[in-house]
């Protein structure tokens, strides 16, 4: 019995290694990231002291990088839901090594994204006004509610499937046993506990999907509920959700490839996982293109003058390079790479994912700035040049994301060990039974 347990532990030893062994690389990475974050904090405090004038925003472009990054980061948070919830719901077995990475992305990126509107405020010291004098009629408050709900739900949804793994860490001993014991909530793998946990996860995985869809729909409402040309479009809700899932999958792929390389997880994150996710990325790219095409065809066909101002600004005007860059990054590069098996290697998928992340950031830029830069009534077109402050806060936000991820992987296994074990022990039979039940024959053969 003891030898069996030892053998089992050794099977997944690679997943425990990052927690128990800390190399120089870890300290160096954390050190550099902390330095970047401290500098960013200083720059932000400077912005609060002097006012938002230190940014590049002006009249009429009153929203800039902070809102672009807000939408961008919250968009990436859809990675967790899609993979974890939908794949769990559809009983896709290849999700097992991926779910935790995806859920962690969501939790960290939601926190970062949710902070961005506060970074954008002219009076962040008054943010508590939202609680004392808020208006639920404003799309911004729909956002606050929705993001809080999603953050809570995804944190719970990250935590619950982590409990058996935390219990494993507690039982292994070594370091910080009291911490893992506290978090394990008394899990000992009994039948009753397993039932409770699986029931809770099943309820959550269904609940999380509409909450996640509502988050990015509500963010799109910030724009579509105004009367501005280029914003007041009914397609924004689904458009943003598709874009979010698109950028989320790309970010997840990048994270997976990074961890596969740095933690030597080639046995767990195999080419097939990347190929499947790559196919999903391809589908989302085509969907994204369909929505974008619809949006602009509608605008151009109607030829409403203010709408056309914004469209020409994007197609041939100042923002042409960003707009067409976005189309290349979001559609041309991913489709070429992902549609052909020859290019669909891990390196190719990495290039496609990075391209999509950049392209989706450009898309957020193309949504926020051009409509603001082209005010109605023949007023002058505005110009927006982001300042050093805004770039620093962008880099700082990315640094916070990376740091959060690195710290998470130091304390918890980045791949769900118990789900891999469950996959080894139970899934093969279960899937065999399931497939047999699809095939022709009397109903009670497999039962």
């Amino acid at each position, binding site marked *: 019995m003891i030898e069996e347990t030892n053998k089992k532990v050794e099977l997944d030893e690679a997943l425990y290694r990052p927690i128990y062994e800390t190399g120089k690389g870890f300290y160096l990475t954390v050190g550099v990231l902390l330095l970047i974050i401290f500098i960013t904090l200083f720059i932000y405090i400077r912005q609060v002291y*002097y*006012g*938002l*004038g230190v940014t*590049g*925003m*002006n*009249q*009429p*472009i*009153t*929203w800039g990088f902070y809102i672009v990054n807000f939408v961008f980061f919250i968009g990436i948070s859809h990675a967790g839901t899609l993979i974890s919830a939908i794949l769990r719901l559809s009983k896709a077995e290849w999700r097992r090594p991926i779910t935790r990475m995806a859920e962690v992305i969501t939790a960290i990126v939601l926190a970062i994204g949710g902070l961005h*509107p506060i970074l*954008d*405020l*002219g*009076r*962040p010291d*008054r*943010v508590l*006004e*939202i609680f004392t*004098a*808020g*208006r639920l*009629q*404003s*799309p*911004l*408050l729909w956002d*606050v509610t929705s993001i809080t709900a999603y953050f809570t739900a995804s944190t719970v949804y990250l935590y619950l499937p982590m409990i058996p793994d935390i219990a494993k860490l507690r039982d292994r001993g070594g370091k910080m046993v009291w911490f893992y014991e506290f978090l394990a909530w008394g899990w000992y793998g009994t039948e009753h506990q397993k039932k409770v946990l699986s029931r809770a996860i099943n309820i959550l995985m269904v609940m999380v999907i509409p909450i996640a869809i509502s988050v990015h729909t509500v963010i799109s409402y*910030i724009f579509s*509920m*105004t*009367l*501005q040309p280029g914003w007041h479009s009914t397609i924004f809700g689904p458009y943003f959700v598709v874009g979010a899932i698109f950028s989320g999958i790309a970010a997840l792929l990048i994270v997976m490839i990074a961890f596969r390389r740095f933690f030597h997880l080639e046995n767990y994150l195999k080419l097939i996982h990347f190929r499947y996710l790559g196919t999903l990325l391809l589908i989302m790219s085509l969907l994204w293109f369909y929505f974008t095409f619809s949006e602009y065809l509608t605008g151009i066909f109607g030829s409403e003058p203010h709408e056309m101002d914004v469209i020409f600004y994007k197609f041939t005007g100042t923002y042409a390079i960003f707009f067409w860059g976005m189309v290349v990054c979001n559609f041309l590069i991913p489709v070429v790479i992902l549609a052909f098996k020859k290019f669909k290697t891990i390196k190719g998928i990495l290039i496609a994912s990075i391209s999509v992340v950049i392209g989706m950031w450009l898309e957020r830029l193309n949504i926020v700035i051009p409509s*603001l830069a082209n*005010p*109605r*009534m*023949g*007023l002058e077109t*505005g*110009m927006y040049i982001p300042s050093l402050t805004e770039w620093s806060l962008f880099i700082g936000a990315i640094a916070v994301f990376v740091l959060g991820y690195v710290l998470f992987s130091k304390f918890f296994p980045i791949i769900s060990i118990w789900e891999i074990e469950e996959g080894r022990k139970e899934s093969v039979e279960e899937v065999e039974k399931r497939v047999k039940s699809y095939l022709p024959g009397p109903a009670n053969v497999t039962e």
Partner: protein
Amino acid sequence: MPKWAMAIDLDKCTGCGDCMAACKLENNIAIVDPEQADEGRVMLWMDMMTIYEGEYPNIKVKRIPKPCFHCDNPPCIKVCPVHATYINEEGLVGQIYNRCIGCRYCMAACPYTAKVFNWYEPEWADEFKTCMNPDVSMRMKGVVEKCSFCAHRLLKVKETADVDDRQIADGEYMPACADSCPADAIFFGDLENKESKVYQLSNSPRAFRELENLGTIPKVFYLSERE
């Protein structure tokens, strides 16, 4: 309940810009330094739109003074998360400087770009500090502000009218821009008062409003034979 509205006669307006200057002085609006002004951060509650139409040599120039239109269906109040911008019963769209958190959503939502933002702490040269208007509250950095139809003048006039136990007469309450216009192109008054100048002008065949199709119901009427 009076409903305050403005009528601007574009056929009389010479585009001199007196209304802009009067507004800035009356409302203690910050003077923005030239660099910032170049970047597009000029703070004007009464803006003067200069619109060029046509190609040389057939260029048409339009100079249109643009205050806040104090819409009856304002898009800005719908989106404010903290109720810092609101419409009162007399049709004035107000801004609570002490509550504004500076999210600038109202600025993004206004189709007329009527609102301005304090990107830095407002500063004045020493010479200006002696001619500030004590009736108008000073704003601080990070809040949105806009034309208020000189509501502080309304408060004063209301007090006087209450003391004398009468209604406000037509022409008694005039914002600074209307007062200062040398061409008498800006009219101001109560739309509910059928005898007021503004009511009559609003029904003139020359009257139009900007972007009426958006349904914002602006309360500044422009009068022009050209449009």
